[in-house]
């Protein structure tokens, strides 16, 4: 309603001008039409008054001819002139009645026409004076001609004036022959009064012409006035329209200028997204800079997003944007689901160097008439903010390291800590060595990345066992970044390998801080060499406690319950490097068992299982230097059919590939880099690194890995090795 009022106000002047123009035109046309109609009537009157003069003359002439024919007794001439007299008298008489009363008469073309009653004083007098002569004249003529029926009015197709039968003519001929004095009297009267009648009819014609001329003059004045008004109105319309258009243009230019100023000044990327996910025609200058992409108006936003965002985030974002463009959910309710906050993106600078940056996208619905028309998208480069928070977190973690170390020392597990520091130092050196090898293609870089991810995953696991959160969390953050890099696949660049070097430096810093604290506190406590369980006097090896704590922590974090048992009597008698490798492997397998194998209490209850899952680790001597190290859980088991379905669903395999692989081949996929059955990734699972790392360690040691499983019953990982070989 308000919009309609506003539009009316905006175009009021033009609207008034148009209404005036139409009204004036209608008026002029109406007047013109009326005058034209009246001119037609005047034309008829002038023509017929002229005809009256001719009829008066003709009547006189016929009477004189009749008189002569009677004298000569020429009946044929008499008959012809009776007929002509009937026509002349009939026309004159009916036309004179028309002038007096206004009626349908016979026109010049002998067709019916309406003759308007004369209305000027002069004309009325002329008609009245004519009647003063004609009434007597007509009485004298009675019997000499064939009269028209009483009240005769000509109609199309009806009897015409002068249309007489021979019998009627013969009756008048007989009357004339028997009453010659009447003919003589009428001829005499005609000779005496014809000029008078001619005069009156002449005056009538002149008066009618005068009236008609006056009307034509008025019409001209009206037409000229109408044209002048139309021109003035046109001028007014033009002036008002131009003024309004200029005003509107100025307002639009101002608004456009302000919009351009905002879009060129604002630091955020701003644009409108339509229902086809296309970017609007106007967007802020910062947008291409922030996205590091050439943005064209109307280009598809999802194409840009797919090119820069990790695959899983991109897929979530597609669903989220679809949700926002629909009207089924309230905007505020889904705001917290926005997957596009602090998104790590890989972008290249002008020289083609790849950089990891963090972007946040915010979406607001734009409504038109309560219908969602667009999304207003705001993009922010939050790299500095994220990096700063990471640095703050890093500083906090470094401080935490000292506290954790103190706690570890207080728990008396100094030996494990020292072993961990030494092993981690070696792992970091291995990573650095790998990084120093020049890579010429993406395949080599991916290979190195997978190797580094396995090593980092190992550090993460061992840090988790010892409860050194600062390294576990950092390893997890590194893993997340490296997963993003791995997902970039074919575009994995040398610049990203530099990022890994920077991450490695972060590892070195944390490792160095930890090592310094351990060394300093160790010196203070007189503990300089790693000590064995026997030396510490502990009844069980600390690793048992650590791995139990880790399993329980992961179970709690994932809403599960477990009971863990370890039989490691044979394990700790093995060489220390073997023990160390098996510890590393067991950490990965325990993580795997708790996150993937053991079910939630509800799921277990539905399968008539105890609420707590059983997790057993044991090391068994098989004889002849042969050992079997086993990790067993009584969970879901590895079910090829489920795996097949999962791999197809998450795109690891196509449907045809999945159908051609046998059950063993499907199960073997679990050991490939980047393959996971977790729905979502978290600190404990989902990056597809754990089993890949286990297999790599087993292969490196020349051991054998055997997997046994039954659906919904158990899964066993057997590591078999010989210490004598």
């Amino acid at each position: 309603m308000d919009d309609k009022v506003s539009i009316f106000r905006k175009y009021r002047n033009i609207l008034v001008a148009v209404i005036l123009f139409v009204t004036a035109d209608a008026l002029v046309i109406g007047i013109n039409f009326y005058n034209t109609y009246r001119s037609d009537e005047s034309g008829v009157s002038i023509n017929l008054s002229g005809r009256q003069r001719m009829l008066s003359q003709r009547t006189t002439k016929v009477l004189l001819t009749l008189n002569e024919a009677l004298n000569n007794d020429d009946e044929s001439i008499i008959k012809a002139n009776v007929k002509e007299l009937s026509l002349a008298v009939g026309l004159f008489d009916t036309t004179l009645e028309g002038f007096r009363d206004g009626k349908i008469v016979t026109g010049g073309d002998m067709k019916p026409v309406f003759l308007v009653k004369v209305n000027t004083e002069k004309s009325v007098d002329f008609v009245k004076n004519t009647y003063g002569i004609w009434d007597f004249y007509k009485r004298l003529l009675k019997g000499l001609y064939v009269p028209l029926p009483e009240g005769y009015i000509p109609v199309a197709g009806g009897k015409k004036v002068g249309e007489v039968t021979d019998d009627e003519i013969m009756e008048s001929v007989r009357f004339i022959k028997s009453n010659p004095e009447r003919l003589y009297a009428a001829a005499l009267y005609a000779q005496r009064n014809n000029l008078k009648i001619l005069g009156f009819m002449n005056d009538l014609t002149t008066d009618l012409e005068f009236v008609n001329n006056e009307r034509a003059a008025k019409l001209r004045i009206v037409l000229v006035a109408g044209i002048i008004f139309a021109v003035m109105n046109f001028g007014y319309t033009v002036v008002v329209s131009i003024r309004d258009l200029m005003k509107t243009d100025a307002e639009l230019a101002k608004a456009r200028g302000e919009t351009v100023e905002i879009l060129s000044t604002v630091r955020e990327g701003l644009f409108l997204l339509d229902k086809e996910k296309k970017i609007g025609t106007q967007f802020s200058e910062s947008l291409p800079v922030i996205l590091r992409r050439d943005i064209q108006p109307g280009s598809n936003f999802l194409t840009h997003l797919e090119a820069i965002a990790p695959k899983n985030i991109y897929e979530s974002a597609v669903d989220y944007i679809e949700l926002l463009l629909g009207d089924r959910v309230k905007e505020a309710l889904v705001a917290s689901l926005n997957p596009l906050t602090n998104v790590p993106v890989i972008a290249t600078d002008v020289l083609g160097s790849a950089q990891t940056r963090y972007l946040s996208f915010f979406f607001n619905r734009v409504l038109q008439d309560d219908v969602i028309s667009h999304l207003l998208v705001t993009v922010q480069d939050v790299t500095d903010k994220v990096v700063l928070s990471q640095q703050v977190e890093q500083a906090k973690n470094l401080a935490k390291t000292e506290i954790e170390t103190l706690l570890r020392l207080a728990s008396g597990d100094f030996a494990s800590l020292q072993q961990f520091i030494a092993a981690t130092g070696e792992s970091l050196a291995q990573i650095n060595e790998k990084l120093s090898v020049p890579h010429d293609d993406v395949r080599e870089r991916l290979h190195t990345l997978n190797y580094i991810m396995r090593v980092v995953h190992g550090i993460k696991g061992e840090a988790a066992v010892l409860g050194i959160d600062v390294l576990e969390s950092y390893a997890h953050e590194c893993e997340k970044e490296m997963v993003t890099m791995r997902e970039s696949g074919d575009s994995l660049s040398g610049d990203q390998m530099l990022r890994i070097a920077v991450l490695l430096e972060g590892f070195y810093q944390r490792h160095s801080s930890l090592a310094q604290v351990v060394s300093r506190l160790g010196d203070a406590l007189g503990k300089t060499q790693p000590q064995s369980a026997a030396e510490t006097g502990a009844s069980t090896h600390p690793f048992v406690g650590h791995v139990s704590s880790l399993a329980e922590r992961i179970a709690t974090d994932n809403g599960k319950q477990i009971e863990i048992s370890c039989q490691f009597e044979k394990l700790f008698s093995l060489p220390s490097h073997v023990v160390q490798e098996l510890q590393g492997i067991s950490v990965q397998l325990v993580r795997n068992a708790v996150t993937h194998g053991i079910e939630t209490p509800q799921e277990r209850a539905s399968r008539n299982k105890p609420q707590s899952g059983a997790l057993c680790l044991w090391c068994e001597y098989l004889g002849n230097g042969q050992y079997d190290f086993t990790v067993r859980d009584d969970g879901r088991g590895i079910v090829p059919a489920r795996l097949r379905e999962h791999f197809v669903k998450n795109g690891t395999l196509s449907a045809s590939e999945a159908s051609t692989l046998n059950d063993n081949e499907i199960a073997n996929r679990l050991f490939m880099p980047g393959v996971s059955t977790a729905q979502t990734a978290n600190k404990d699972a989902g990056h597809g690194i754990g089993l890949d790392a286990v297999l790599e360690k087993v292969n490196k040691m020349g051991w054998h890995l055997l997997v046994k499983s039954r659906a919904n019953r158990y899964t066993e990982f057997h590591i078999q090795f010989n210490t004598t070989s």
Partner: protein
Amino acid sequence: MNNNIDEKDILTFVDAVSGFFFQVTQEKVEIKAAYLTEGGMVPSTYDLTSYITLSGDYVGRIYFSAPRSMVAHLLMAMGEQNRLEDRLLDATGEIANTISGNARKHFGETMEVSVPTTQATDANWLKSVVPPHSYVILVKWKQYRASVVVDIQRVV
């Protein structure tokens, strides 16, 4: 050693080298490896090395080391006939100068940067002057390899 610098800072120096080559030959250099001078790893030294010394909010050195053949090829691409040792050293110094310009732009005018020092170097020279935890970035241009070594730290 490299406290508080990240890959963006390091890329500033690599991009400077890349930009130099791109401007002259329309061909960028590519990063082939990046590692730390840690755990027994040493920086790769080539025949000619130039470096700049930074002071201010950041202190340390940035080195660029390349084989003679690579610099000679670069001069040839620039249309230079003179490819004697002095000119090769000058060209290596020009690359360090470009690094210097990018460093000023990236870190701000408060950073002081020395004029480039250029010298012929043997295979162990960088190992002897570069401390642990410095970044070594191996780059490739055509068939040649060169190294950019970043040994800086923030002091404020």
